[in-house]
């Protein structure tokens, strides 16, 4: 398959290892990965903060970068929330814009965009990607993957097939971590309270590593874990799947 990588602005800028790992996993499975260099940001932050017209600019940018998706068999991103933005909100933004061309492009493009775990399990039918990760790991199901994309247990299936891994249960797993984009700073106190509970549950689980589908949630949870000097690391799911020889 010819796969377009949508690395996301956060992944590109702050967490490049998640993007590199995504490339590695997809190539290991025999697929060709391309990275359209014109891509920047999907516009999620603008959309979620109420800046729909600024978000629309970025929708146009996304369409410029990926075309109507015809150049790829699929577009894959190591992020649940960015994919949710494209698949669930681009249609509305495009139709609100009244631009028929944009609407057409979005209606063809959006259904071709997938989050990595749903793509591997749901589209490719792969669970074992040949990974080896000898650590005690806990998985936080981030909200957009869980309730918008409905990735279900795809990430857990992938993790269960990883050699050497010890998967542990996260109590109250489906509770939001409290990131929520600008929520973390606009409602800083509530976000902090939610984070404190999530950090406590991660510690309860006894894991050494906390993983998720989204760099954003991991940045928030990891920031809390680091502030409390817990020693628990956050690692994107793609990186675990890419680990083939010992520790990464």
């Amino acid at each position: 398959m010819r796969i377009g990588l949508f690395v996301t602005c956060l992944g590109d800028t702050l967490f490049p290892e998640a993007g590199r790992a995504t490339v590695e996993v997809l190539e290991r499975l025999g697929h060709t990965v391309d990275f359209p260099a014109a891509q920047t940001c999907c516009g999620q932050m603008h959309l979620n903060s109420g800046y729909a017209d600024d978000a629309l600019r970025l929708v146009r940018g996304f369409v410029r970068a990926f075309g109507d998706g015809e150049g790829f068999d699929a577009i894959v991103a190591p992020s649940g929330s960015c994919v949710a933005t494209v698949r669930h909100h681009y249609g509305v933004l495009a139709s609100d814009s009244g631009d028929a061309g944009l609407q057409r492009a979005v209606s063809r493009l959006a259904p071709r965009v997938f989050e990595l775990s749903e793509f591997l399990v749901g589209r490719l039918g792969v669970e074992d990607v040949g990974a080896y990760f000898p650590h005690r790991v806990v998985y936080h199901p981030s909200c957009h993957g869980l309730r918008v994309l409905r990735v279900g247990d795809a990430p857990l299936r992938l993790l269960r097939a990883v050699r050497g891994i010890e998967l542990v249960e996260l109590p109250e797993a489906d509770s939001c971590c409290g990131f929520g984009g600008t929520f973390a700073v606009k409602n800083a106190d509530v976000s902090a309270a939610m984070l404190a509970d999530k950090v406590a549950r991660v510690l309860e689980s006894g894991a050494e590593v906390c993983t998720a589908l989204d760099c954003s949630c991991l940045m928030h949870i990891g920031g809390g874990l680091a502030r409390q000097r817990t020693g628990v690391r956050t690692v994107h799911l793609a990186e675990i799947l890419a680990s083939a020889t010992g520790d990464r």
Partner: protein
Amino acid sequence: MAAAGGFPEAARAALADAQLRRNLHVATHTIREKRLRATSELDDWEQLREAGRRIKERTMRHLDRHLETLERSVLAAGGVVHWAADAAAANRIVAELVRAAGAREVIKVKSIATDEIGLNAALAEQGIRAVETDLAELINQLAGDTSSHILVPAIHRNRAEIRDLFRAHLPGGAGLSDDPAALVEAARAYLRSLFLSTPVAVSGANFAVAETGTVCVVESEGNGRMCTTLPDTLITVMGIEKVVPRLADLGVMLQLLPRSATAERMNPYTSLWTGVTPADGPRSFHLVLLDAGRTNALADPVGRQALHCIRCSACLNVCPVYERTGGHAYESVYPGPIGAILTPQLAGLERGRTLPWASTLCGACYDACPVKIDIPSVLLHLRAEIVRRGRAGGGSGDAGAAGRDAGGAVAVAGARGHEGGRNRREAAAERATMRLAAVVMGGPLRYRLAQRAGRVTLGWLRRHPRLTRALPGPLGAWTSVRELPEAPEQSFRAWWHERQRRSR
């Protein structure tokens, strides 16, 4: 007291109350699992939700016809129908009816609509005492509290706090224990004689069926039956959105509501009455149809669905934000996720201006809603609307909504007439940042330069943690409880291009 800073400020106060957080945690977590058990028991639960959604959606789209039909049906069944465009009109109608019945006291069934319009206070001004008969409403009335939950208005109080209230306020309550059964018994004894002797009652309505004029009250304690059966005069105050067209619609709604609300297969008592019945129940029945901002919400094709709410409170019980802050932080009789979309639409965007941001958009509310109100999408829609008006009006503007605001005296405690200067500056700064970010992200070159600048800045900030934490705005807020991420040595795209070059 309303917080000038809106939800974030009110939430901060709530978060500082450790007892409150414990009470809320226990209550919301207890009900969550029970609700899932109750809903998974029905093999057609998802179909019922969809049917509920379609019934409500279609009803709202033709609300005028259904209201006229309802009016005709109630009149034909011997009832009287009153229309109230705003809170003041509704309060005036009820007070006049009570006076006409020669009463100085009324008993009340739990009704959020009457809380919304501040009926009890309005009656008190007319020298009429309104006694709440729902246990939680009674607790709040004794404590001088406002509601913090749609279904369980005193959820913020635990049994020990309730015992102390009853000891202080109920006749003969001195030796009470904190056993919930004993507390319930004390409330029963206190209200019994009122039920048997008060000639006028005021209720809300869960549903009203247009085709027959049948009104429906769903309850547990029997106080609803007492109020709708024993008095001579019954006055029901109902939001216009509560109408359903057909009797068969109740067959859907009465499955959705109890399982979503109290996680029961069916609530103990559901009363249905149609006008007046000879020799059974009240001799006069008045239905007050209340607008108070509902037509405001109706005018917004996206926001309209907030009116589909059947007040089950499942969205509150699953909300991670509500779980931490409780209901008072929303400064409205409609707290939680549904309140965050309902309050700004009923009371005007300006008054509930911080509420659409009181959510991480985690989607738990949408999953739980028995009539599938897409709360996250409406939140996004309202955020955009508030930002748009802020831009147009230089930050303060909600003139459009205020002009159409039919709510009048809507009892939204958080009502704020204007934004403070600080808020205006913050809003302007945010607008500028968002625009700048969109422009930067709009071109790959600009984006790459900004990326590089961002990495350098991040590295510097991480080397100066104390300074960073002291910063006002987002950076200070972020680093108050979290570390900043490390700045990577190269961006993904730099790595990619390097790899491409090497492979060539």
